């Protein structure tokens, strides 16, 4: 019993501490100071974010069940940044009348799900992974049902929980097959014991595992819940779901595919992933084209973005890993900028349809401007960060070198045109169209403004400042052997 091993997980412990403090505040502080809870949480979390940037000890713990390495460390920090933005953007919303009574739970659940994601990222054992996954996904259902005022919120929660449980059943079925073949749940053990086999059982297992994690990532055809839930859930939750949860899932997906199946089964899962990427990008885009509800629209857009993220995995190389982390970081800033604007407008006017945004530029230039930057970044337009992340992830994929991968990248690139089309639709609504009854000027809260400003700076600077990517590259280079990357 070596409890000192817990010291290898300072980020988890820190987060737990934040959670506990918030919990205590929520439970024990008097009612009148409750409206300071969101700010309190945010500040606390900001401190924690800074703290977790402090380099910590790397290594295994719990017999290899838990691993802290530079990649997981940086990934968690990326998520922290995202969560911090989400928190900033939700302060004002969580104090609004109809959710104020539950705001404590909102923040607590948010932090707990984040903890679940930490576990997903760091776990090297399927049981721990499943627990992390469930921790990261089950409370989301509760969060989705947060806006009790709206029926859609409840429906979203119901759809989410059923598909989530179903997917976890499939996932665990897959794990049971893996277990049946290897006799262990430790990633490293599995990787060594399945070498040499190429059985139908393991193929089924890989497919089910991909399906299970693909659910979190909303890869087509495991994505169908996404749009409904994104649309129904409160905007803060949607933004959380679309970036943080996706980022964590993407990274852990990489870990599972590369660490568990990478050595022996690369050619199997790469083709599976190939098909999924094509489907995901294409169908996500096709669905997005006709959406008028912005949240639903961003849901489909995020589906296709997930496809792009997967391009970083398929090549199994350091560039891919670095560019995937970079992509996630950029994606967090871009998407949160978009959701931030949507959130502000929804909070003030309750409008989320693209048609309501007509003429927004005339009345709310800064919101429109931010939204436009977000759209451009998502669409991959230079000099915004999205361009760089897309380019790098394509480079990462192409590094593999086969013609098939080039074809895949070409498909992805052709899809960027479709995606550009619908991103421009938003820009068109805001800038090109004019409306006499456009949304009037919105006086946004300073926290929202701060959140948006940070996002905008992120969008603009992340690409131009090459240091960030260089850092990621160095990190993925340093974990090259751990992940058996090329």
């Amino acid at each position, binding site marked *: 019993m070596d409890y000192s091993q817990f010291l290898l997980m300072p980020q988890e412990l820190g987060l737990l501490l934040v959670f506990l403090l918030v919990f205590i505040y929520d439970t024990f502080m008097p009612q009148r100071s409750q409206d300071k809870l969101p700010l309190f949480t945010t500040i606390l979390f900001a401190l924690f974010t800074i703290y977790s940037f402090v380099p910590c000890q790397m290594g295994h713990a719990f017999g290899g069940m838990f691993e802290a390495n530079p990649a997981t460390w940086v990934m968690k920090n990326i998520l922290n940044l995202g969560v911090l933005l989400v928190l900033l953007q939700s302060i004002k919303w969580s104090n609004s009348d109809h959710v104020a009574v539950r705001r404590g739970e909102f923040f607590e659940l948010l932090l707990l799900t984040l903890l679940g994601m930490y576990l997903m990222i760091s776990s090297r054992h399927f049981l721990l992974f499943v627990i992390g996954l469930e921790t990261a996904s089950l409370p989301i259902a509760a969060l989705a049902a947060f806006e009790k005022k709206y029926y859609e919120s409840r429906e979203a929660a119901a759809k989410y929980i059923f*598909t989530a449980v*179903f997917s976890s059943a499939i996932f665990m079925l897959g794990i049971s097959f893996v277990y049946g073949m290897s006799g262990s749940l430790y990633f490293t053990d599995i990787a060594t014991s399945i070498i040499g086999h190429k059985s*139908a059982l393991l*193929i089924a297992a890989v*497919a089910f595992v991909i*399906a299970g994690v693909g659910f979190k990532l909303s890869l087509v*055809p495991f994505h*169908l819940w996404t749009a409904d839930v994104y649309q129904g859930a409160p905007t803060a939750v949607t933004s959380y779901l679309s970036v943080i949860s996706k980022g964590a899932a993407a990274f852990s997906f990489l870990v599972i595919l590369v660490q568990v199946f990478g050595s022996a089964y690369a*050619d199997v899962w790469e083709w599976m992933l190939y098909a999924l990427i094509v489907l995901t990008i294409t169908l996500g885009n096709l*669905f997005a084209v006709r959406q008028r509800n912005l949240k639903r629209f961003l849901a489909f857009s995020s589906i296709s973005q997930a496809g792009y993220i997967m391009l970083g995995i398929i090549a199994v190389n350091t560039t891919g890993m670095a560019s995937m982390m970079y992509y996630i970081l950029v994606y967090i800033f871009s998407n949160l900028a978009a959701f931030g604007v949507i959130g502000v407008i929804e909070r003030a006017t309750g409008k989320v349809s693209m048609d309501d945004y007509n003429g927004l530029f005339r009345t709310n230039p800064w919101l429109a401007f931010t939204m436009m930057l977000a759209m451009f970044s998502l669409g991959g337009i230079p000099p915004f960060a999205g361009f760089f992340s897309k380019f790098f992830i394509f480079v990462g994929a192409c590094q593999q070198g086969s013609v098939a991968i080039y074809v895949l990248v070409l498909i992805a690139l052709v899809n960027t045109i479709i995606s550009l089309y619908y991103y421009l639709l938003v820009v068109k609504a805001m800038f090109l169209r004019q409306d006499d009854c456009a949304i009037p000027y919105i006086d946004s809260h300073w926290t929202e403004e701060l959140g948006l400003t940070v996002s905008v700076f992120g969008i603009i600077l992340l690409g131009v400042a090459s240091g960030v990517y260089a850092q990621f590259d160095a990190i993925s280079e340093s974990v090259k052997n751990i992940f058996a990357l090329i």
Partner: protein
Amino acid sequence: MPLSYTIAVIAIPLFMFLFLGLAGVKMSRKLTGVLGVLGMAVTTVIAYGVALTYFFGTGQGQIADGVRQAVTVFNPDWLSFTDTLVVRMGILLDPIAAMMLIVVCTVSFMVHLYSLGYMSDHDGNPEEGFQRYYAFLALFTFSMLGLVVATNLFQIFVFFEMVGVSSYLLIGFYYSSPAANHASKKAFIVTRLADLFFLLGIMILSYYTGTFDFNQLVFGSNGANDMAVAQSAIASAGGATFLGCSVTAWALTFIFIGGAGKSAMYPLHIWLPDAMEGPTPVSALIHAATMVVAGVFLVARLFPLYVIEQGAMEIICVVGAFTAFYAAAIACVQSDIKRALAFSTISQIAFMMTSLAVSSADGALIEIHGGTGLGYMASMFHLFTHAMFKALLFLCAGAIIHAVHSNENDKMHGLHKFMPITSIAFLIGCLAIAGIPPFAGFWSKDEILVAAYHKGFFWGLWMSMVAGMTAFYMFRIYFLIFFWKKHEVHTHHAPKDQPWTMTLPLIILAAVSVVAGFVPAHDLVTWNGHHLHTQLDWTVAGSSVAIALVGILLAYKLYFKENDLPERMKNAASGLWTAAYHRFYMDELYQFITHKVIFQGICVPIAWFDRHIIDGFFNMLANATGSASFAIRRLQSGSVQSYVYIYLVGALALAAVTMVCVLI
């Protein structure tokens, strides 16, 4: 006067153009006119000085070994295509260039002067656009001068384009009038089409010979046209052929087509009659005296090459002879005096072309046949005389039109009493063109006929016949304008001789037309710079004068006094008459080809294709994306159970397909 002054001859008109074009708007109209005339006067003086120096000066090396040399005064690079193929813009003086300087400057100056009156109303107030008019005249003069002194083929092409544009601008001077508008367009496009061939010709020729420069193409070391040089230039093509003909023959034929476009050879002549929509002085300058002979000039420039490529020369000969007749035939029935004159011009230029073409057959190649190049000389001589008397005729026509405000000869009749000076000047012009000695036309035309008879009796006879027709139609016009019946005065002003600015040029040109025939052309403008011994061939001269007199008599019989004979003749051969009057429907044919075939048959379908097929394809892509998006919306049915179903089937399919692929 040093030959390098030629640069001033070019530069002054250019300067005048820029000056009048840019600053003219701010000046009074009269002032611009006067400035224009003054500028041209200076140019003319210098041009005369240079040309006379060239022809008669001594000690400047123009004549060496008894050969008049081509002198390159100035030749800087303008555009380098490759290291060797460089376009230069320079000044080259040889007999024909010097002669052209005189022709161009004389006529241009006359026209400048004349226009002062012509372009004003009856009270002497210049009309609108006066500045523009003078600017364009200056531009034209510049371009034409640049053309004649060109040192290389490409420079000729450049200035071909330039004169084309100035012609376009001047024809369309009355741009509000649809007819002028249309005519200017037509002129430009038809000549442009010809220029395309010219361009192709240059491309081919320059590719094989590796040069544009006349110095390397035709001029020998003694500074005159040299067959040996031409032969080696042709030989540099290495006997390459295309479709059975040598590439150089193709090239030269193409170049001739370029010249034919400018010189209005059949079937590219159609623009010239329409070009009469421009102000009459412009017609005199551009479409009678100078620009239209650019084609002749071009062929003359490359004369040695054409001599070697006999095939191309034959084409020129046939085209020229046919055009001469064709245009003459049409000229016989035109009622619009300017058009009649225009067809007369076409016919006369065709004379020159034919003359050049027969020149090679008459044994012109001293080295080969011991011939003389008589046709060449005759052609250039005719070019010179024709410029004078045709300008005269046009300016007279302008004076008449200015007086009666119409181009139609049935509005004229009997003007002799009202406009005696004009009448006499016109008569002189007619006599000159009809080839009655001692007027200018006689001398040059006679040489042409001689040269034609050298080629063959048929050619001579044919050309003599055309010469007879010339006499007939010119006098037909003359009689119809000045006699026929008493003039009915419709307007307030009775027609009268025009002010001195217009009359003076008439008198000068008339005088020149009388005496120009005595210019010693055989000494000055021979193809190889040598003095050419000629003597009047009395049989040819006699017969041609006889034929001309017959023509004049016929015209006198028919048109001097009002009678119904012409009407009866017209009715007797109504089909022929109508066809000729409608210029044998060439315009309609062009109209059909351009509008029905090219516009309706090519442009419209292409535009449709572009909008509907090509663009439609891209729109279809977009629409297909939209439809696909709509079609797959059922997947997102909202039912959790179907979501799960798809999820499961997706996962199973992934597994199953992979199993099939990997394990089997």
